[in-house]
């Protein structure tokens, strides 16, 4: 739903405002938001934009890695140069293509904070589910050490989720 919402908003904007995106045609851009483990691929074909989750091992024109703060800022129209200067973004490949995509995102009027909160809400629910599974599957372990581990893990999860084992597992999938 997250990707579909972005895809619909971008295409609607392009159609309604008659924006020419032929410069982006045949481009595949990877965007990775590292602190929430969100990867999106933006594919532009025949003046349509697709937001997909798997590149099917095709070569990308540019790979963008950034943190959540920078990702949100992109939708709010922050200058691309400012982001690069702040070192909140890492770009491998065509900077021109990255800039063109950033311009589109800035124009899109997507309520990205709302979408992101839904997405991260899903992750937390998933992590809690995994934790409950671990509790169920660990009845043979010593209770004290298990509770201690669980407490540590929850503390890490709440304070620094990117360092949590659960997060690392989700990332490696």
């Amino acid at each position: 739903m997250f990707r579909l919402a972005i895809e619909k908003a971008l295409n609607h904007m392009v159609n309604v405002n008659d924006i020419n995106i032929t410069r982006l045609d045949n481009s595949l851009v990877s965007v990775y938001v590292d602190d929430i483990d969100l990867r999106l691929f933006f594919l532009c074909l025949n003046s349509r934009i697709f937001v997909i989750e798997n590149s099917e091992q095709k070569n990308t024109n540019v790979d963008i890695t950034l943190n959540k703060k920078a990702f949100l800022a992109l939708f709010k129209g922050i200058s691309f140069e400012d982001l690069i200067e702040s070192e909140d973004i890492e770009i491998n490949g065509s900077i021109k293509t990255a800039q063109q995509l950033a311009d589109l995102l800035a124009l899109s009027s997507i309520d990205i904070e709302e979408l992101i909160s839904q997405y991260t809400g899903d992750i937390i629910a998933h992590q809690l589910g995994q934790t409950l599974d671990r509790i169920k599957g660990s009845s043979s372990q010593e209770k004290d050490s298990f509770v201690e581990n669980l407490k540590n893990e929850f503390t890490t999860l709440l304070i620094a989720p990117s360092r949590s084992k659960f997060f690392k597992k989700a990332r490696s999938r």
Partner: protein
Amino acid sequence: MDKTTHFGFKQVDVEKKQGLVKGVFDSVAGKYDLMNDVMSMGTHRLWKNYTISSSNVSEGDHVLDIAGGTGDLAIKFRKKVGESGKVILSDINGSMLNEGRKNLLNHGIIDVDFVQANAESLPFEDNTFDCVSIAFGLRNVTNKDVALQQMYRVLKKGGTLLILEFSKVENEMLKKIYDLYSFNVIPKFGEFFANDEDSYQYLAESIRKHPDQETLKSMALDAGFGFCEYHNLTGGIVALHKAIKT
């Protein structure tokens, strides 16, 4: 080479399947919409709305709805493409097309074209459509690989194929309930509402013989599509595959 294929749980000669499927749909055409509402408890409308919402179809687009039957997708696509666009509803079965014609007229739609066609040999030029859809039709096609290649052929570059179809339920508990429902309740509904238990027994069986989500995705990629992703709906009872021609 294997000359037989499945028709529900039965093995039949390849050349006989099309006629058998025709028999099923000739029989159910008049009660098709009613039965869809009864069997899915109205959920099929949500699945179809999600399909339309995922389509990226906009004003002026050309859309082909294969196995379009009674026309519920075509009606929604027609609204999206507007007067400058074009929607073609195709179905191999004449009885279903007649139901579609009546249904669209009842909605005041007169500018959708109807084409009786086999999905394995679509009578359209290459690179014609921005979107091709097939909802609850692919599992009845004998040579699915050939049909997918045809869909790829008639799509423009950047065009989207949407396959809405019953699929594999992932949750074991839901699967048990679903099996019980589809093999014991649905045929009885068929008997009660449409006076046709056998056709609805076939429906339940054909769903189990249809490729699962990952297999169908691979088939779409093999047919030439550059990308294919799927989204499970109602726990995988139904999946929407979206494939892009690159």
